[in-house]
């Protein structure tokens, strides 16, 4: 079964030019990557795609923060405004119940979550994770926060699996940021 593909392997960030274009008609797509970038960072910010591999120790840190079901590796962009690093932008996907949820996470220069956007959602249940107030719970969270469902992130009844998996995904992205990107020029 497809959902058993557990993303534990070493992840590599690939150049943006190698990525697959999306078909024009996509019923459950709400935002393109560019639209999400514009929503999460100020106008004029420049997005530079990064490639990244992790050492075993870095990998272990990410895994201990949270394992997620995913079919592709998180992608990351370094974000600059007037030559100053203002944050990082991630795009990743996690399984909801049966289908993948594509989401974006913006992390600011201080390593805190700036925002989470849902790019695509494909299932019949659990759409409610698009609710802005649910996603706003992540804003300001850093690696020292728990970022766990039913702890510091409230659940949406009826969308539990989607909520849990996105929450786990955000926690893992923060751990990856902390292990590999924090403090980089």
């Amino acid at each position, binding site marked *: 079964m497809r959902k058993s593909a557990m993303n534990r392997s070493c992840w590599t960030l690939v150049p943006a030019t190698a990525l697959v274009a999306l078909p024009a008609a996509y019923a459950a797509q709400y935002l393109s990557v560019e639209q999400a970038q514009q929503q999460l960072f100020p106008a004029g910010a420049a997005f530079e*795609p990064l490639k990244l591999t992790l050492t075993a120790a870095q990998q272990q840190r990410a895994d201990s923060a949270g394992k997620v079901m995913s079919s592709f590796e998180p992608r990351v962009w370094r974000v600059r405004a007037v030559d100053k690093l203002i944050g990082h932008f991630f795009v990743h996907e996690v399984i909801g119940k049966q289908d993948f949820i594509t989401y974006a996470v913006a992390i600011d220069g201080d390593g805190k979550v700036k925002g989470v956007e849902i790019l695509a959602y494909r299932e019949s249940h659990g759409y409610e994770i698009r609710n802005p107030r649910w996603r706003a719970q992540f804003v300001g969270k850093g690696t020292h926060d728990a970022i766990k469902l039913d702890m510091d992130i409230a659940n949406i009844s009826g969308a539990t699996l989607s909520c849990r998996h996105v929450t786990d995904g955000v926690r893992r992205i923060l751990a990856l940021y902390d292990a590999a990107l924090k403090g980089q020029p």
Partner: protein
Amino acid sequence: MNKTAIVIALGALFVVSPLYASEADLMQRLDKLASELENVKSELKKLKEEKEARAKEPQAPVAMTASTSAAPASTSSQSSITPMRTAITNQTTLFGYGEMNYNRPRKDTSQTQADLRRAVLGVGHRFDEKTELGMELEFEHAVTSASDKGEVEVEQLWIDHHLSDKLTLRAGLFLVPVGLINERHEPTTFYGVERNFVETAIIPTTWREGGVMLRGNTDDQALTWNVGVSTGFDLTKWNANSSDGRESPLRSIHQELQLAKAHDLSVLGAINYRGIPGLTVGGFIFTGKAAHRMPAFAAPDARVSLWDLHARWTPGAWDLSALYAKGTISNTQALNLTFVGSPTLVPKEFWGWYAEAAYKMWNQGDYSLAPFIRYERFNTAAKFADLGAGLTPEAAATEGVATVGANFKLNANVVFKADYQKFKVDTGRDRFNLGLGYMF
């Protein structure tokens, strides 16, 4: 550079060459073509070499550090990029859930029973981006045959078609969007070994009907609503000599799309607000006639209606919920007169409510332990149609059940449960329960 294009271009050159050209002319042209061909060849070779060189570049850059890609993409070049998979079509997924329960009455322990309550296999299939199918096959009580008590049933079989971001059409056999557990009834999603009484005796969980239903939501997903037209109940099935109708009036006359009488269709509507993280507040209403023009049936205008109000709030480690449901079966006077003397007449009203509090008191890794307490009151025959003095049955006593127990989860999808249930009226039913449940 495209080889086919070169060949076509060269061919075209020959074709358009004037046929009357002199031999010297032709030789000159051939020389020219030969030199052009050489140019094209070297051009191709160069391209090939460049391509090979690119392929040899290391895909994985320096370990331990982040680095920009070999060919940095400008912001403008990203506008055409979408890092998602291509459209998912013709994709089939398998899912399932199940539960095994052990019930031991406090008094009459000879009634102690262990049962594989249900094993459900589900299939989801996506035809294209807008259309998908959902199906659940349920096996109850482990073994099904002519001489066994098990059942095999298609619990759901529907097609969803997304009309827009905000509107989905569902057609087929679907779960009715009522209460808190009818649509989400996997054992890992509710507290206690058995489903609560209000959502089994008053709301006949797992309640499903055949029909069409529209599901809509606001832009921010805070508000969702459903409206539908569906099959309903069949009051001609009422058995006044069975206790089934007293245990759950609607369960005893549901149809489950099994050769369902469908002359009278029912309508349903639901609305749920989930705009504040952790909070769900909603309601549901259903009504439809239930006689289906059956000849000589004594309640030709009988109507079944049910509504509920529910709320669930999950602040931090707490999980608090409450629900009220009320059902009515109208125009049953003449029918009940034919049942006088039998133990179970058709009730005019039945209702129930519960309040539940659970607290995740411990968790380590994926393990978690959540004790809970639930109190419910319900009456499956709170009122009967007036048959005149001496004939109208007495209303049933309102039952009260307190349940105390805990859910212990190995992970989000596997749960062990234990609880004790104390009955206020029918004290012989006091019991201890154990359960194992899973979903995937």
